[in-house]
């Protein structure tokens, strides 16, 4: 029995298959996972992402705190509502988690972290927040819905009060705002969990509601133009007891219920990393396709993990994360070995020294790779419903390009190295030849 979101009962009523994800009982799919995927690429779908953890960070030194905590530079956030994606690193430069940080006010930022790392993240953040006197407030009272797809914004806007809809539709990508919600608390009490129980941190704020002044003034829903699908859309944080009604109203407008299965194929097509698959505490951002989220300038900003990253960078090119498109039939999966042809030519003796262990020489695909080859590994692989072939992210030696081979259940299949994303905004961005 895992933790349950405020939408759990509704998922069951909708016939979802429930699976464990990071200790949470979450919907994998409601019907066809591929149909859910296409709904998001072509129209709109809604995901329950309430298992992710919203954390309010408050205090006069909160910006300085975050500049030390996150490898991306919160100093880049100058306009209220703006969001920043980045990684929280350990002292070795390993990725503790990836997260989004919203700049709400100079004394109030909000972070959203992954479900599987929720407890360790909170402990890490609290440990480092002490010296900055930053209050760390877990917002377990909020549910989170991701409404994604080319029609997602207009559909959600239909369910907001007029003023809120206008504010939401005016949001630029990667901005969020508090708005008054869509009313109605019908279906209340659906969540079986203990969400909404007052966190201890409330006591430290006797003079204000936990959510802060902006939340009181503008409304208690937070709408942001963010997501994890490669499509336009909104993510909505709202009081947990209002989430089931919003979900059902979205369904009534034709917005399709989508599970974690579709979420995974969508994010992989979009070339977005999944924590625990594509990076973890044992890998650094440079080898995880996340160099763009590391702000080494200004050089004086001493964030956790910086010294380690500087040493790693000084050693020269290391492994990197690339995209793969499978050219043969089959499906690429996590942990499959990627064989990269040697950069120098493989001579006959070397090739002969690598007899096929498979004993099936009839199929050219099963020829064993020659010596001089080096290895990489698939970190995420799936079938891409948009490309109608298999795609993957793989960690490979520096300089890898062209065609590689992947050990798929004992067969060596050809895959082409590409630069992610594979798909954005409904369009295929890699060549299929």
């Amino acid at each position, binding site marked *: 029995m895992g933790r349950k979101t405020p939408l759990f009962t509704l998922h069951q009523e909708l016939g979802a298959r429930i699976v464990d994800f990071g200790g949470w009982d979450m919907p*994998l799919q409601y019907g*066809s*996972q591929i149909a859910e995927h296409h709904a998001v690429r072509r129209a709109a779908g809604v995901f329950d992402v309430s298992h992710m953890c919203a954390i309010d960070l408050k205090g006069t030194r909160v910006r300085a705190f975050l500049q030390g905590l996150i490898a991306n530079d919160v100093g880049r956030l100058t306009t209220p509502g703006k969001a920043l994606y980045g990684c929280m690193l350990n002292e070795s430069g390993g990725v503790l988690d990836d997260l989004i940080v919203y700049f709400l006010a100079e004394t109030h930022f909000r972070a959203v972290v992954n479900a599987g790392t929720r407890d360790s993240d909170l402990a890490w953040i609290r440990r480092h927040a002490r010296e900055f006197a930053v209050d760390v407030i877990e917002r377990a009272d909020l549910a989170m819905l991701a409404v994604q797809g080319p029609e997602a914004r207009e559909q959600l806007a239909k369910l907001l009060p007029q003023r809120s809809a206008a504010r939401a539709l005016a949001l630029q990508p990667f901005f969020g705002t508090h708005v008054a919600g869509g009313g109605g608390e019908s279906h209340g009490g659906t969540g079986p969990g203990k969400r909404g129980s007052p966190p201890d941190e409330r006591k430290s704020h006797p003079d204000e509601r936990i959510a802060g002044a902006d939340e009181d003034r503008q409304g208690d829903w937070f709408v942001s133009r963010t997501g994890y699908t490669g499509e336009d859309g909104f993510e909505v944080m709202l009081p947990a007891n209002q989430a089931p009604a919003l979900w059902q109203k979205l369904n009534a407008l034709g917005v399709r219920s989508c599970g974690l299965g579709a979420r995974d194929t969508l994010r992989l097509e979009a070339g977005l990393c999944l924590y625990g698959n594509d990076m973890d505490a044992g890998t650094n951002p440079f080898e995880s396709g996340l160099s763009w989220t590391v702000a080494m300038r200004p050089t004086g900003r001493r964030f956790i993990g910086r010294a380690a990253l500087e040493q790693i960078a000084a050693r020269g090119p290391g492994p990197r994360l690339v995209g793969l498109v499978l050219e043969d039939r*089959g499906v690429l999966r996590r942990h499959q070995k990627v064989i990269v042809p040697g950069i120098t030519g493989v001579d006959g003796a070397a090739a002969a020294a690598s007899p096929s262990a498979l004993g099936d020489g009839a199929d050219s695909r099963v020829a064993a790779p020659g010596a001089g080859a080096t290895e990489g590994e698939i970190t995420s692989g*799936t079938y891409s*419903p948009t490309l109608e072939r298999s795609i993957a992210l793989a960690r490979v030696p520096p300089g890898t390009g062209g065609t590689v081979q992947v050990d798929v*259940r004992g067969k060596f299949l050809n895959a082409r190295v590409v630069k992610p994303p594979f798909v954005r905004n409904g369009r295929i961005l890699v060549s299929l030849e």
Partner: protein
Amino acid sequence: MSQLPPDLRYTKTHEWLRTLPDGRVEIGITDHAQQSLGDLVFVEVPEPGKSLKEGDACGVVESVKAASDVYAPIECTVTEGNSQLTSAPEAVNNDPYGAGWLMRVRPASATAVDGLMSAADYDKFVQSEST
């Protein structure tokens, strides 16, 4: 759970077997199996002529989320693989006991199929597995 065809035999690894009029046996995966796997995107079936012993892995069905081996339920020789599934693996989802058949085989023993589970026994087995 949908209706299990009563004329088929079933295995604990969720294959079904249908004895054809010419004595050959048609093999597929059950509705329960395809539902567990989800949308199938890749199916690999054995080549005609391949000899299989009971329990041999002889094919693969892959859904978006997982790969699953297909096992030979009886000792047999493959006479035909369902080549339609190469371009339309979703037939296994849509019609698991019909168009979604995986292979046709010649059993080594005419009575081999008799020892497998009936529809009622398989139904009980699935119920017991899910609790």
